[in-house]
């Protein structure tokens, strides 16, 4: 074997290895991205399905704050949070319970979760890495109801009742929900941008007049 044969063989081997690594590199990234992409969509679907189902069946009023046994917002004088909604079902099915949906942000871990509170003792996570949850409220004429209108009364049943609510909430006929999800793996967030889905839901039980 001559030195030129060795050099040619080495060059061919290097070329082949380069080609193989050239294919494997992008494939590896593709293998990491594709399941993450599917996972992002699945988390979006899970979040929206839960909220939409409860919104459709919610009885008036739809409340833009948390209510229940623990951390009852009206106790603290809070009657509006942009990322919170409490949905109470109609008194039909005795097994149906109220649900509060809200965003739980953990700045230390730089992550956030969509949470659901059952009005009693349980706060459960529904979806991870949901970094935005917004609710916008509309009246029968399609006009946006500003947050101030939900916090200035008049109150039902009175100003001191623990479960009081602003009667302007009864004007809510449509709710716009915006959910934004991000990739769970931080290194993939550059190639997999956040996905946002916005949908409008008209609560059926708020529109029966």
């Amino acid at each position, binding site marked *: 074997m001559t030195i030129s044969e060795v050099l040619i063989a080495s060059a061919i081997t290097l070329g082949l290895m380069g080609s193989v690594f050239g294919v494997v590199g992008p494939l590896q990234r593709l293998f990491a991205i594709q399941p993450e992409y599917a996972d992002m969509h699945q988390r979006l679907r899970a979040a929206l399905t839960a909220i939409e189902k409860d919104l459709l069946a919610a009885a008036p009023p739809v409340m833009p704050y948390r209510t229940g046994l623990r951390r009852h917002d009206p106790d603290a004088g809070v009657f509006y949070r942009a990322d919170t909604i409490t949905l109470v079902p109609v008194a039909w099915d005795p097994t149906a319970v109220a649900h509060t949906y809200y965003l739980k942000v953990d700045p230390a871990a730089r992550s956030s979760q969509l949470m659901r509170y059952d009005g009693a003792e349980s706060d459960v996570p529904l979806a991870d890495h949901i970094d935005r949850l917004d609710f916008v409220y509309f009246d029968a004429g399609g006009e946006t109801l500003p947050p101030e209108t939900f916090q200035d009364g008049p109150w039902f049943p009175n100003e001191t009742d623990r479960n009081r609510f602003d009667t302007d909430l009864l004007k809510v006929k449509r709710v716009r929900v915006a959910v934004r999800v991000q990739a769970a793996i931080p290194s993939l967030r550059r190639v997999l941008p956040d996905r946002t889905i916005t949908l409008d839901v008209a609560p*059926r039980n708020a529109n029966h007049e």
Partner: protein
Amino acid sequence: MRIMSSGRWRGRAKHAGGSERGVVLILVMMSVTLLAVLSGALALVALTETAVAANYRDADEALYAADAAMEYVLQEIARVEDWTDLLATAGLSSFVDGEPSGLRDAGSEPIDLDQATVDVTAAATPPAGAVDEPSVLYAFGRFADLVPGTATGSMTYVAVWLADRSPAPKEDATEPVTLSVAGVAFGGRGSRRAVEALVQKTDSAAVRLLAWRELP
């Protein structure tokens, strides 16, 4: 410059070269197999995601189809003077595709209308203080026939049941004043969604929706 030029080495190299025939083929086969497995795994992930998305879309379509069928029936029963007639016989709606029983083909699997009536009666539980009467099949057919032109190609099948939900106790002869209207849609890939409305008769030719819910 030559290296390894002794006769002994050349002999070995020649012998080794002879036994290396077909090595490249094996290497190529291994590389192709590896790439095929990788591509297959990637395709599987993509196909699974596509199937999940399709199931989600079908379920969503079924929900809106069930709601639309229920709304159609609400319009129809609003014009009926005495609701007793609606509950006396099955299939009185103008939207029917045959006898109110038996099997129907909805694409993925057949629908047994008799079994569906049993299922709806079990699921559509009455609210507190209302009579618990069995559901009566009222309207049924392909969703594409309910909304011609807009649901072209849809294999979704819809059916609507009525049940008396008047306040209890109730005399048999009296006219129902409250009805349960349950709409069910059987969509693609075995999807099924059901909704129910509780409606009350008003003085005008309209019904008042008391409550709405999604059935399991």
